[in-house]
């Protein structure tokens, strides 16, 4: 770090907080003020985004700007609002208490926006109003007289056009000159004012507030502001006086909570009446209402919703696919290039299958995440996201979720990673958590190869027409089972947390706006970058760990040679050794003599280009790969869990597949390919299926049956088998607690589901 960077360290900087309602255009202003000089992190202990940037004031001094989460009130109702309140009141250790506040006010929705302003005016901190969206307000026939508004509020009001940079220099100038607003008292009922006055001496005596701010602290104590009450907790005299005052007010029929809010709104009504000239005949929301008449119409609304959601789904399910494939191919090509000069061995494999596959396993999610956040940003910016929630809320409320859970859950049918990330749009913490917990139950695209492999192998041969129908129904059953499991889980969450915890659905329906391309791209990039840096690291480390599990320990050379000799009688017969031993004769004693021959022979036959010999070499390689996998930690783990999974109808080979599938579920298919020595190529699905059908237990019974396949399908529907989801849930819930719970819960449920399927099935089928 250079000397200048140290010299401009935070303590010497003025810190400015950017506060405002949701949908007030706060973030656009933040971007306009800070440009690219911004940093996104998390507030410690909560999953609330912390956005800090830098900007130069009119007097040339640098300041930090914190973009606070949107809030309606300083008496918070969600983690987001709590953080905003704590920063504004200077209660957080991780953020300096603001030396000035910019309140972003939506000019087209002035009355409601001024409620928060009425609270900000009481903080005793210099305040500047950024009157945003004046152009939209003008077009809606709401002319706000900024000078008059400034006079009414007693602070500077700077009109802005949010999407263009008009007004920014004036805002910076006003910030440099801002001073703390005059304390004021809202003309509340006399009883409330009197009760407050009685508390003031006690507050000043206890040193809880300077005399100028004592009256409003008294008011906050009376209306039940938890933060004020918490501060007064240790002032015993004050607390008793406050309780007595509240009881007295109650008896007098005055509810401080109601009285305070109504007093503020009475003041707001005066301010609005003085500073707004309404020129239009209709309501300012007339245009939005006309659009709503179509977009939330019972027929057209649902139809348009279906089209929008279908295109969202298609883009992350189908359009992202070739990009993901190309990225994957590109990365493995790079890996091959890097290791092409290296001798085969652990290092080459680490680089190729560990590091590059690990990077690929992270990067592969980028197209889906980027596309989903492109859609989400556009839907949110335009105002449609609230309508989508409005349309779907009834359906989701029945299982304890939120209207805004719809898009995260829909996305999870493509992949749970973007789905879990999309749950950020849900501002109610309980519903957000429930959505994250149930999202992986949606059958994602990684499960599809497993479904088609198993259904194709074990549920066919019913005749040309019935075949398709039966396969289709089983596939549908898998999807439905996942949805049912999600619904039951979500209801269980609600039951566990108690009914009174159900958070209210009070959702603003913002006016429709044309989304701005630059904002959308910025949001898309910001979310993708966060995934790469935060969740990506965990995913990468876990993939390298999984690679090591499947790679070590290495098969001893003698064992490899023995397997090769067993598997490749053809190539062993053709080139070098004149007399080939029958496979059965390659017993322990002969192994050591075969060692130097086998690799040389396979190399020779591969070089000769003889098709038969090449095939034989490939077969031997496959056999070695199968043996190697069985020998590795993953294979041993598969063996070790066999007693546990036997009641589900699984053998150790499937156990290995289940272990390997933690990298990604579709890896189960290629692992089966390795286990059955048919190679791991995806095009060999038919071969894998044949091998599965032919596999026999030592006593000659088939290992696989439709019942085993059904049990395995149930497992794959219900189990959480994806380190990437695990990593993203950790990142999105801010700790290990929920991902670990989810892993344990889903896999326990999967075990139970498979157990019931297999045991009931075996008793029914005899």
């Amino acid at each position, binding site marked *: 770090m250079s000397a200048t960077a140290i010299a401009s360290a935070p303590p010497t900087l003025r810190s400015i907080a950017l506060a405002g309602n949701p949908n007030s255009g706060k973030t656009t202003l933040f971007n306009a003020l800070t440009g690219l000089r911004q940093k996104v992190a998390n507030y410690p202990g909560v999953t609330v985004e912390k956005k800090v940037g830098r900007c130069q004031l009119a007097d040339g001094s640098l300041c930090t700007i914190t973009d606070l989460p949107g809030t309606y009130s300083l008496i918070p109702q969600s983690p987001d609002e709590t953080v905003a309140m704590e920063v504004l009141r200077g209660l957080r250790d991780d953020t300096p208490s603001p030396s000035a506040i910019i309140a972003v006010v939506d000019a087209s929705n002035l009355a409601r926006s001024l409620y928060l302003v009425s609270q900000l005016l009481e903080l005793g901190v210099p305040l500047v109003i950024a009157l945003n969206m004046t152009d939209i307000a003008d077009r809606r026939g709401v002319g706000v007289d900024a000078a008059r508004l400034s006079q009414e509020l007693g602070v500077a009001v700077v009109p802005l056009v949010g999407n263009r940079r008009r007004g920014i220099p004036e805002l910076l100038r006003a910030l440099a000159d801002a001073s703390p607003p005059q304390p004021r008292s809202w003309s509340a009922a006399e009883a409330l004012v009197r009760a407050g006055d009685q508390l003031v001496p006690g507050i000043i005596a206890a040193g809880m507030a300077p005399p100028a701010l004592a009256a409003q602290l008294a008011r906050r104590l009376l209306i039940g502001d938890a933060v004020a009450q918490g501060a007064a907790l240790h002032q015993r005299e004050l607390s008793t006086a406050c309780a007595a005052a509240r009881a007295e007010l109650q008896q007098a029929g005055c509810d401080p909570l109601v009285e305070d809010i109504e007093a503020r709104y009475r003041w707001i009504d005066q301010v609005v009446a003085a500073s707004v000239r309404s020129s239009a005949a*209709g309501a300012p929301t007339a245009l939005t*209402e006309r659009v709503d008449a179509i977009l939330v119409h019972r027929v057209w609304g649902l139809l348009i919703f279906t089209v929008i959601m279908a295109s969202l789904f298609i883009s992350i399910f189908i359009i992202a696919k070739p990009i993901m494939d190309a990225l994957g191919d590109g990365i493995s090509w790079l890996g091959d290039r890097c290791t092409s000069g290296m001798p085969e061995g652990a290092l080459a494999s680490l680089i190729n299958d560990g590091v590059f596959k690990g990077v690929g396993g992270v990067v592969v999610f980028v197209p889906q995440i980027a596309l989903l956040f492109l859609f989400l940003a556009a839907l949110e910016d335009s105002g449609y996201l609230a309508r989508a929630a409005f349309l779907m809320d*009834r359906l989701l409320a029945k299982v304890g979720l939120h209207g805004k859970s719809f898009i995260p859950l829909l996305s999870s049918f493509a992949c749970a990673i973007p789905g879990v990330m999309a749950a950020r749009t849900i501002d109610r913490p309980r519903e957000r958590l429930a959505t994250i917990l149930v999202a992986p139950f949606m059958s994602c695209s990684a499960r599809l190869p497993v479904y088609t492999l198993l259904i194709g192998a074990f549920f066919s041969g019913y005749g040309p027409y019935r075949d398709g129908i039966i396969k289709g129904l089983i596939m549908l059953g898998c999807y439905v089972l996942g949805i049912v499991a999600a619904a039951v889980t979500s209801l269980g969450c609600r039951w566990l947390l108690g009914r009174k915890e159900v958070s209210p659905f009070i*959702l*603003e*329906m913002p006016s429709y706006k044309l989304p701005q391309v630059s904002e959308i791209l910025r949001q898309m990039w910001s979310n993708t970058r966060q995934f790469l840096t935060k969740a990506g690291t965990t995913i990468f480390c876990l993939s390298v760990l999984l690679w090591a599990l499947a790679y070590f320990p290495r098969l001893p050379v003698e064992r490899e040679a023995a397997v090769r000799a067993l598997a490749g009688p053809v190539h062993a017969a053709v080139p070098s050794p004149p007399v080939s031993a029958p496979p059965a004769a390659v017993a322990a004693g002969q192994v050591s003599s075969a060692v130097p021959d086998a690799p040389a022979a396979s190399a020779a036959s591969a070089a000769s280009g003889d098709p038969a010999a090449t095939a034989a070499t490939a077969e031997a390689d496959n056999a070695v790969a199968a043996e190697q996998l069985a020998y590795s930690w993953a294979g041993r783990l598969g063996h070790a869990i066999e007693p546990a999974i036997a009641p589900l109808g699984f053998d150790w080979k499937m156990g290995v597949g289940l272990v390997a599938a933690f990298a990604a579920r579709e890896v189960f298919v290629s692992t089966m390919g390795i286990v059955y020595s048919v190679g791991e190529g995806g095009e060999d699905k038919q071969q894998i299926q044949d091998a599965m059908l032919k596999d026999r237990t030592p006593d000659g019974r088939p290992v696989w049956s439709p019942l085993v396949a059904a049990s395995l399908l149930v497992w794959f529907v219900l189990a959480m088998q994806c380190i990437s989801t695990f990593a993203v849930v950790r990142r999105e819930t801010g700790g290990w607690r929920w991902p670990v719970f989810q892993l344990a819960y889903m896999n326990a449920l999967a075990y139970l589901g498979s157990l019931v399927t297999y045991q009931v099935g075996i008793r029914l089928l005899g």
Partner: protein
Amino acid sequence: MNAPLPPSLIPPATLADIAAGERVTVVAVVGPDQIRRRLMEMGLCRGVEIDVLRRAPLGDPIELRVRGYLLSLRGVQAALVMVQRAVRGPSQPASV
């Protein structure tokens, strides 16, 4: 309703009972402090006029206009808002 009733004779209802297109006045907001406070902070105070615009296609939530902006509430929350139907009956949605 030909002859308008005096306000004192119109029985109070909750916002959840109001049909789309009707205009009502808030009489009181009841329920747990946390929810009551937020409803009022969003502008649903005593004496405020509300236009109920529509119900969602599945019957819930409802969309309404209050203090010049649009808000949606689930029926459960709307039932906490006690209202009185406007004496002059249903209003035209877009006129103030």
